[in-house]
């Protein structure tokens, strides 16, 4: 009897948790990237496990090969400067080095002027601060970076 009650309670709790999670509204964020190498949004706050849709718009006018923009969300503990240092030498991979793909949570590929891209993903369940960058050479160092804050 005790075992049956425990199992029923557990299922009920799990169902509630899943239901709560499903009820969490989708977070929609639109970020603009500029020729001045800045993101319009530098902080995004979400709840653990919250679904997110990020849209990146390149609002600049410079050619893609001189001023393309992407959006890379890195895993906890990943060093943004180490990632972009590797990315700078990965032009053939659109500045998203495959060797470091395991450090990426979500990404939007390289965009030229007036192009836009979208990605959807679920926020990490671990509360904390996660860095996002534009990995086009030197853009992160110039300030094109931000943080996803999970709390």
């Amino acid at each position, binding site marked *: 009897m005790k075992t049956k009650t425990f199992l029923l309670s557990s299922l009920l709790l799990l169902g509630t948790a899943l239901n709560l999670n499903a009820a969490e509204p989708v977070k929609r964020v639109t970020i603009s990237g500029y*020729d001045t*190498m800045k993101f319009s949004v530098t902080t995004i706050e979400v709840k653990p496990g919250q679904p997110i849709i990020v849209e990146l718009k390149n609002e600049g006018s410079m050619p893609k090969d*001189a001023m393309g923009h992407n959006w890379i969300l890195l895993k906890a503990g990943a060093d943004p400067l180490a990632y972009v240092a590797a990315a700078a030498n990965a032009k053939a991979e659109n500045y998203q080095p495959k060797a470091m793909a395991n450090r990426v949570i979500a990404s939007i590929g390289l965009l030229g002027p007036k192009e836009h891209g979208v990605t959807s993903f679920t926020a990490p369940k671990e509360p904390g601060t996660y860095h996002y960058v534009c990995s086009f050479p030197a853009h992160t160092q110039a300030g094109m970076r931000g943080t996803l804050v999970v709390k």
Partner: protein
Amino acid sequence: MSKKDLNRSLRLALIAVACSLAFFGSGLFAPPAAQAVPSFARQTGMNCIACHTDFFLLNEYGRNFKLSGYTFAAGGSNLPPISFMVQPSFTQTGRGIEGGAAPRFAANSNFALTQASAFYAGRLFGPYAEPLFGASAAAIMNKFGTFIQVTYDGVANRFHWDNVEFRFADTATMFGKPVTYGFYLNNNPGMSDLWNTTPVWGFPFSKSGLAPTPAAATLVNGGLSQQVGGVGGYMMIANTIYLELAAYHTLSTPFQYAMGIDPTGQTQIPGAAPYWRLAYTKTVGNSSYMVGLFGLAAHTYPGRDNSAGRDKIVDFGFDAQYQTSIDKHDITVLLSGIYEKQTWNASQQLGLASNPSDRLYEVKATVDYLYDKTYGGAISYFAVNGSRDPLLYSGSASGLPTSNGLILQANYIPFNKKGGPAFWPKSNLKLSVQYIIYNRFDGAHTNFDGAGRNARDNNTLYLEAWFAF
């Protein structure tokens, strides 16, 4: 200028440009491999447009590259950081200059090679730090950068060192804010500047060496170029606050001669002259702005003569820049002003200045425009004014330093947007027509020299083909 003269000038200019294009297109300079130069573009793997609008006007990317000490790399090139620049030109002034515009040149309507320069610019060890020192040491060595320019001056017919700078730059975090910091050695106060508002890299970016220019200029405006050595440090905090401090000292006579500089008559700094720079910059969307202060203070020997003590010269400068990019339109507004306080303790005793102290003011306001990264122009107002001093401004009948006028320029930069010809994609070319209009020159609108020459006689038509490869 008569209509006949103007037609002749334009005809000659067209011939000059056509010859230049034919020369460039002939492939005489074709490298053994189809690699790209200039060296910065090769190092970053990008075309000139990444760092410049109307070159050499820096954009946000270019400013960050310079902050990095010329060390940022992404191109993977194996060539040394060497590149070249050639500027054939044609000059015509409103009225010819008796005895010739310069030795070996006619009184007017002259073709010249304004400059031909070689550069060693980029990472100090180029792409060779890792093979030379190993991976861990290369991580340090690649933080050293350099900009070394050696120039043949086709007007003076001499070789000399030009702007030269060595840098170390790195990044750090301070109070949670990103900081880019660096140290440098260079030979020109203001060479380190990022916004093209201080004199070294200010507008016009090129001008004739065969036309008269106003006699009066502040010390920080070219008065020390290539004659001094300086050491300085800088930091950019949170991409917003820029701080810089340096000290300059006049280089020894033998060293200057060895570098192709004639030290005769120089204003000598026997001690250390501080140079300072403070700027606040911000980006908003595709626009950026900057407001700043800069200056220089020096105790000096006039004409390297130490027999009568020292003068004291202090320059206080302010500057501002607004830069925006709207679709195909790039607009940059540059403002600068310099107030110079001159105390002539030595010069007055030596009979070089009439007054114990003088003031000098310089103002410049420029709007630079570029359409589709290819077609552009600029208009610039300039003025210099100050105290009347008949000995100091002996070439002026009124003894005044007053000059003012406009600079109009049109540019065509055919390779700016997509890079140079296939055989040399990282090259660039700028064809420009510049016209300088003087309202006043060395103190007067008419008869400024007491010999009948008017300000408009110095109006200058300057045509140039600027090759960088």
